[in-house]
């Protein structure tokens, strides 16, 4: 079986800066895969490259067998890839309802989009209460929920989620992960999630990649990585012996 998302030897540059340097990874249908790495590792760049927001210098990105390179972001969305970006990027001057409906405009079947809207509100009762609010007035956790719901309104097969826990309280983070897993179970979504810390994602992920300096340092099944030493080494670039130094760096 070929992977749903298959990335080979990807390089991405911002003018002179090499942000991604030869990354190969894959995400299989139905999996929850997490890309973990410190700030500046290149996680956001990876997701933006898949979603079409930045153009790779070289390498291949294939979704469901077809190449995504040189495909526009709005077309990639139509192919079934949806991004929940870092910092949520909800449309603050639009209402909550408009933020959601806009995701559904992708579908030519208006009835289906409308019934999907209703179905989604069952999963997000908080949003249902606030449909007429300007989205900018929502709390951080609600905005994150809205960003996820908006992305799901495009009826994706692959959901890319960039640091969903950023700036949120632990309880709310738990709730967001719970919702993501619920959406996966309900809709057969495949999840590709960025996080800075591996502690949380080990609990939810099937597989993990550790990214640092634009390169994959470690790959493995979450269940095999519960003992954190290998992760620490990959994350910081030195071994458990110098863990104190690692903690200072972190």
């Amino acid at each position, binding site marked *: 079986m070929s992977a749903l998302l298959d990335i080979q030897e990807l390089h991405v540059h911002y003018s002179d800066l090499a942000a991604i340097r030869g990354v190969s990874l894959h995400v299989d249908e139905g999996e929850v895969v997490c890309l973990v790495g410190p700030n500046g590792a290149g996680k956001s760049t990876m997701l933006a490259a898949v979603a079409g927001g930045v153009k790779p210098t070289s390498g291949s990105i294939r979704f469901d067998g077809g190449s995504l390179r040189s495909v526009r972001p709005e077309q990639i969305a139509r192919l079934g890839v949806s991004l929940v970006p870092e910092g949520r990027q909800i449309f603050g001057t*639009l209402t909550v309802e408009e933020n959601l409906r806009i995701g559904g405009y992708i579908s030519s079947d208006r009835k289906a989009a409308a019934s999907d809207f209703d179905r989604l509100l069952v999963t997000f009762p908080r949003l249902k209460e606030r449909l007429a609010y300007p989205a900018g007035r929502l709390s951080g956790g609600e905005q994150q929920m809205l960003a996820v719901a908006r992305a799901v309104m495009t009826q994706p097969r692959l959901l890319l989620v960039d640091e969903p826990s950023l700036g949120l309280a632990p309880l709310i983070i738990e709730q967001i992960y719970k919702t993501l897993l619920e959406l996966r179970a309900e809709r057969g979504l495949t999840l590709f999630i960025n996080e800075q810390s591996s502690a949380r994602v080990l609990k939810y992920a099937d597989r993990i990649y550790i990214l640092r300096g634009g390169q994959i340092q470690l790959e493995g099944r979450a269940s095999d990585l519960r003992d954190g030493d290998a992760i620490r080494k990959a994350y910081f670039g030195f071994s458990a012996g110098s863990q104190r130094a690692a903690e200072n760096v972190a």
Partner: protein
Amino acid sequence: MISFFQNVIDAVALGSIYALVALGIGLIFGILRLINFAHGDMITVGCYALIVPSTDAAAQLLIGSWTPLAAIAAIAIIVLLVALSTDALVFKHLRRASPTTLMIASFAVSYVTQNALLMAYGARAKGVDFWSGVNVQIAIGELRVPLLQLITVAVTFALMMLLNLFLRYTRYGIQMRAAAEDFRMAQYIGVRGNIVIGLAFAISGMLAATVSLLYVTQSGSLSITMGVPLVLFAFVAVVIGGMGNLLGSVVGGFLIGILLTMLQAYLPPDLRAFRDAFAFAFVILVLLVRPAGLIPARNTIERV
């Protein structure tokens, strides 16, 4: 008192024109971060399209002699197509360029448009007798109001209502608002960038066409650079209203119109020649107090 009300009507009518021009500039700026100085030349194109292309001093009506409905439709379509083609020929190739580059490109488009008109119509200003029937005064009590000013205000408010309904309640309008707030995010969620940009140019083209008709009916004259002062003051209106905020553009447009009219009416006669200097001094004052304009947009400073 009567003369004051007369001045108010003048002010609101002039403000309407500036508000329409400012809306056309504000719409494009919102989506593309392009300060489109060529917008004024779209207005000029709409004016010249009324007459037969020739370098004669006397203008002969062409489209301008058609029935009003046909003339309005033809001018709207012509200006819309020219506006869309400025995008297709120039701005489309600069999508990743900086706002500064885009603005300079709009100067280039402006000069090219003016020179194209120059070749077709000659450099001399022309008088034109277009819809002069509406240049009558109607009496409201003791007030004598030019009918054209009433039409100008009514058309402006009708267009602003329509635009508001479009942006608020249609799927394309909602997509335009989303793209104005965060273009890249809108694309990620499936909004087609080219459709939104095309709509922005099309709508701003139709607004320009409206200004063409109102303006030439009022002034009865044509010149190659007639759009330039309009776009300059409208740009000032956009800035004092708050860049990237359509309501701000409208408010700024009316403010500028009211300011210019009132200065013209109430400045001592020997200072009237410096009206524009007073107007700009006021603008600087506004910006000193509110650097982001009267109604700042949330998201104009940074965007990718």
